[in-house]
């Protein structure tokens, strides 16, 4: 019982820290309460792990007191500055009464959320990457009371994929340290909480654009994708990456619509945290940066202010992501598939030597697109709508969403062209064990795209 109380306290403290960061970015602006909580949880986890890393850089022990100290000072200041939340009037509440269909959708979402928690908490960490890459490092951090000074040049190389950023293992060790116990059952609560956070952020983004009913429909659709729910409970960092990327692109599009700089900064912080979660975060960030560049060039007519905002965006992401790249490069940390160090231009050229892999890659991609067991029919809907709305998909605001999705799909496909293989080793072994995980990263973007097209075609009046 005491462990559970400490766990709840840990999550509350994490969210409060995240809320402080959110408030510093959004300043006096208030978002809906649940959206703030969802963002706070994600930002809190990210910031705490960055703090732990900073303590390692300056050779300080990341005790609970050291981590919480800056926030003990910042939190009361923010409470003082932040405007009080306005209540919703009774007449508005009456107008927003739920219909039977809305109740059905909410029930569907609730069932998926419950199932995510159930699947996560019924068994300890046990999945392949979950323990081999992340949980074992979390154990090292917990036993050492922080990141040991020789961790990156000695200890981490004992385990596979040492070049993976350590957000997840540090998060797990933070939970262990707060609970005061190495409980590899309760620590899995991290993942279904990210599941709720994605759904909440996604819902409010859609609600602002399309109204409550449509937001509920597509949030339900996202929640009910089998592979999406499965990955919210098995201990892989892919789902955490999905949260940061999803929230990142939603706020990027929000900035494109409203031009509020704070949304751009928030997007940059979230995408920076995606780079801090998994290496694929860099690919997702680069795709977003390119879309932003296009937007500035086309919509802002190449104004100097627009390019300065682009530089601000990129700089914010680099501040968060580059320290890890420096460590990987300096200590020559490894990725089992790609070898040691970071990507160089010479690696990019090897893609042209491996074009014979394209048919195999295309085959594996179509297995995902037409695989209802993992994805329900979301990819079939996407392909059908894409074929029927080819012109509309590349017009106006839609073109940025379409291009972002296509860049990411193409980018992820081309990754398999870069992969070095031993002689006569087939590429499909790697694709079949990783592609469905990569699809998770941009599934919310796909559902967002489908929702946007349905809105344009008038399908949302159900």
């Amino acid at each position: 019982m005491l462990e559970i109380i400490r766990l709840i306290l840990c999550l509350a403290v994490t969210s409060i820290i995240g809320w402080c960061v959110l408030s510093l970015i959004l300043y006096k602006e208030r978002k809906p309460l649940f959206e703030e909580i969802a963002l706070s949880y994600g930002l809190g986890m990210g910031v705490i792990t960055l703090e732990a890393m900073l303590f390692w850089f300056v050779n300080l022990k990341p005790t609970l007191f050291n981590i919480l100290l800056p926030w003990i000072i910042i939190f009361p200041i923010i409470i003082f500055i932040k405007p009080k939340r306005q209540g919703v009037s009774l007449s508005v509440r009456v107008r927003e009464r739920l219909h039977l269909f809305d109740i059905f959708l909410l029930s569907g979402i609730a069932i998926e959320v419950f199932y995510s928690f159930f699947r996560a908490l019924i068994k300890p960490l046990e999945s392949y990457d979950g323990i081999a890459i992340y949980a074992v490092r979390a154990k090292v951090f917990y036993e050492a009371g922080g990141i040991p000074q020789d961790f990156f040049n000695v200890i981490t190389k004992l385990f596979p994929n040492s070049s993976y950023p350590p957000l997840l293992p540090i998060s797990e060790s933070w939970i262990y340290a707060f609970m005061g116990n190495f409980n590899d059952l309760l620590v899995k609560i991290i993942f279904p909480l990210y599941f709720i956070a994605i759904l909440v952020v996604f819902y409010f983004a859609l609600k602002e654009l399309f109204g409550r009913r449509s937001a509920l429909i597509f949030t339900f659709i996202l929640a009910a994708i089998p592979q999406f729910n499965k990955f919210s409970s098995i201990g892989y960092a892919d789902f955490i990456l999905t949260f940061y990327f999803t929230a990142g692109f939603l706020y990027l599009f929000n900035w494109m619509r409203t031009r509020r700089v704070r949304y751009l900064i928030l997007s940059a912080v979230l995408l920076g945290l995606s780079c801090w979660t998994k290496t694929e975060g860099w690919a997702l960030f680069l795709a977003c940066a390119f879309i932003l560049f296009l937007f500035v060039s086309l919509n802002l007519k190449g104004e100097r202010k627009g390019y300065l905002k682009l530089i601000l965006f990129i700089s914010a992401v680099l501040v968060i992501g580059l320290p890890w790249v420096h460590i990987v490069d300096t200590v020559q940390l490894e990725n089992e598939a790609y070898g040691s160090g970071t990507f160089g231009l010479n690696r990019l050229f090897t893609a042209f030597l491996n074009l014979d892999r394209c048919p195999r890659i295309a085959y594996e991609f179509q297995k995902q697109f037409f695989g209802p067991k993992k994805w329900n029919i979301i990819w079939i809907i996407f392909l059908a709508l894409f074929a029927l709305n080819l012109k509309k998909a590349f017009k106006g605001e839609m073109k940025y969403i379409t291009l972002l999705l296509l860049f990411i799909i193409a980018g992820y496909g081309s990754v398999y062209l870069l992969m070095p293989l031993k002689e006569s080793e087939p590429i499909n072994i790697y694709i079949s064990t990783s592609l469905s995980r990569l699809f998770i990263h941009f599934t919310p973007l796909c559902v967002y795209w489908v929702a946007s097209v349905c809105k344009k075609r008038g399908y949302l009046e159900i």
Partner: protein
Amino acid sequence: MKLAKTTLIIWVFFWILFVVRGLYKGEFREYRALLQRDAETKRAYIVGEDLYEFLNFCLMNLPRESSYQLRGELKSIDERRLVYYLYPHKKSDNPEYLLCYNADRDIVRKSFYKSAVFKTGQFILRRRAD
């Protein structure tokens, strides 16, 4: 509008189908087995009872933070799990101990001797002092 409603109905149909299918195909059995267990027996269930007993045997017989290598018939996932549960004992290319699970007697080397035996095919070898 009709197309959108039909698509949503098809979606809900597949949603229910795959949840029920998953439960029927084995998830329900696994959940029922796990709900009846405490944390320790859950780990044993996930790892495999036999391997888990061997793991506990190793944890009892290895001095703190010793280096080891794994030998015998082990699936890749089982190796990863052993590495995880055995930490702070560390896997090494030049180990003090060889942890032999479902291994042949022929695995014994001149430079190692049997320091502890759990059952047939499951034992720990220790490096001889020079």
